[in-house]
């Protein structure tokens, strides 16, 4: 009985050693992957910062104003002024599609009958 126990425990130790060996290398590989990913994240963050700076630079008010002036023929953009505020009375009331059909049944039928 005792020799069987010895052999079994020896085999168990060998198996555990093999497992620990593999875990060790797997962990190191994962750490390498993590640091590679972190480097990648850092690089992407940096390029994001550059993109944001570039976006801000391209959208600076001076440049936009110049572009508006250059493209005035096509776009006709003007500065916002108080006159551009309208009153509700200036907006025509949209016809109710359902109600419109009801008061003009001929038009509706014309559409239905080709």
């Amino acid at each position: 009985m005792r020799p069987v126990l010895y052999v079994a425990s020896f085999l168990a130790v060998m198996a555990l050693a093999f497992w620990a060996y593999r875990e060790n290398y797997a962990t190191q590989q994962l750490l390498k992957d993590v640091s590679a990913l972190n480097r990648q994240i850092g690089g992407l963050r940096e390029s994001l910062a550059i993109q944001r700076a570039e976006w801000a630079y391209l959208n600076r008010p001076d440049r936009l104003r110049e572009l508006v002036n250059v493209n005035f023929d096509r776009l006709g953009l003007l500065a916002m002024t108080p006159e551009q505020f309208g009153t509700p009375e200036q907006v025509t009331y949209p016809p109710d599609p359902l109600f419109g059909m009801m008061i003009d049944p001929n038009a509706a039928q014309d559409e239905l009958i080709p």
Partner: protein
Amino acid sequence: MIRTPLRPLARILEARRRGENPDSIERENLRLRHEAMRDKSRARAETRLLCLGLAFFTAFTVIGARMGTLASGQPMEPRSALAGTEISANRADIVDRNGRILATNLRTYALYAHPKDMIDPARVAVELEKLFPELDAETLERRFTDGRSFMWIRRKLSPEQMQAVHDIGDPGLLFGPREMRLYPNGHLAAHILGGSTFGAEGVHSAEVIGMAGIEKAQDDRLRDPGHPEPLALSIDMTLQSTVTEVLATGMQMMNAKGAAAVLMDVKTGEVLSMASLPDFDPNDRPQPLLTGDPGDSPLFNRAVQGVYELGSTFKIFTVAAAMDLGLVTPDTIIDGKTPLVWGRFRIKEFQNKNYGMQTVAEVIEHSSNVGTARIALQIGALRQQAFLRSLGLFDPTPVELVEAPGARPLVPTKWPEIVTITTSYGHGMSASPMHLAAAYATIANGGVKVEPTLLRRDVPVNGPRVMSEETARNSVDMLRSVVTKGTASLAEVPGYEVAGKTGTADKPNPQGGYYPDKVVNTFASVFPASDPQYVLIVTLDEPVETTLPTPRRTAGWTAVPVSAEIIRRTAPLLGLRPIAPEPEPDHLLAVRN
């Protein structure tokens, strides 16, 4: 285990036979047994102690060895740290109230040299001079060959320049990474942002430190690694750009040498726009002037540092103080006959007018010096000082700029009655446009004190009450009548109910007295008058309006039209709907009713 009986029968019998006490045999055996037990447990305890000692020894040895390796080894970043808890090494960005970038960082490289590793110093010097014209080849070569082992060449390189230096191909030229502060909007809000420079520099990094403006005032916050989120200012970039554009045009049209504008939210005290002209590019901050008046430098922030006599804009404070003390009402009649003689001083009106008897509201409408002086004399020096102090006109403004604490208002040290008189209409005492904005905001905010800030605040301030709500309401109404009937008629912007007060102050001559033809024109306005929300201060330095043969230098002709244009352009951006004019009464209906 063989256990020895305590009373072995053979020995007992033997003892009895000899007439001895058999109990002594039992005691003897008991003693022996106890000794054996004691020896055994001692041996076991000793073994245990030894084991424990060994365990402790091993544990402490392992910990000590680990500490030793940690202390003597190279520091290493933890590789398995969780994301999201990272500390930012960058200086925080500065954004406007809507999150648009005002200042950010850009990765760039600095160029340095190890001359001892250089293969051909002469060629490197010539090549570098070709790339960077400001460098001198001879100086470079001399410094490359004088035996030093390290030298800086340039602090910032663009990627193209870096590639060109790479192409020189000398192993003695090296690059160190740098964070460069970038202000993508150029001149916009230059005085607020200030600028930045490099602090301690190393090969691998350099610290970026604020040099002026909010960059310096909030330096600790911006550099704090625990606060990587951007710093949100109260400034709105669109408004700032519009105000600066209109102000620059106005300054040019009015032939002024400088101008400043402050636009403030009266509920929160947030400065939505603050412009000072001439300005500069914070990416390339100019050197301060070494000679002449520092106030002429583009670095000078007129809105905060420019401490001027603000003239008649102060009159409303005198009248508000008198109304709050219950001395007058808007309808009280004031004697405004000129001149008011006080000792050897004669107080007169602009263009030697004489308004005679007038109501308090008319004193403000006409901008009557004599009327204001009479009201101030009723108030008295002490109460006048207390009121001005409560409006914050005696202390530096609390805005978050490094220049602000230095811009202390110039207040007369003694306060005889003549100072009471002159201060009542804004002469003899100087304050900055930012002070004026805060004081007008306090009136517009229903009399609750407003402290200006450049940081986004969002919640209304809950300051101390400076004057009653009724006084504040009446003051705003008087300011409104200045625009509808008085000196600031050009400020009328249809739909926005502008209320305000003009101020024209002669510029003091450093040699004493005042310049005859140099003025500082100010227009302090509040809009819309029925529910004041914003305060706008416009100051023009030495303006002159020359469309007529006689040049005009009063604020009503210079600062007022510029302010009106700023309000016309900014109010829609602020989301203010123009208030529709009262409809014409229908005569038919009126008759029928």
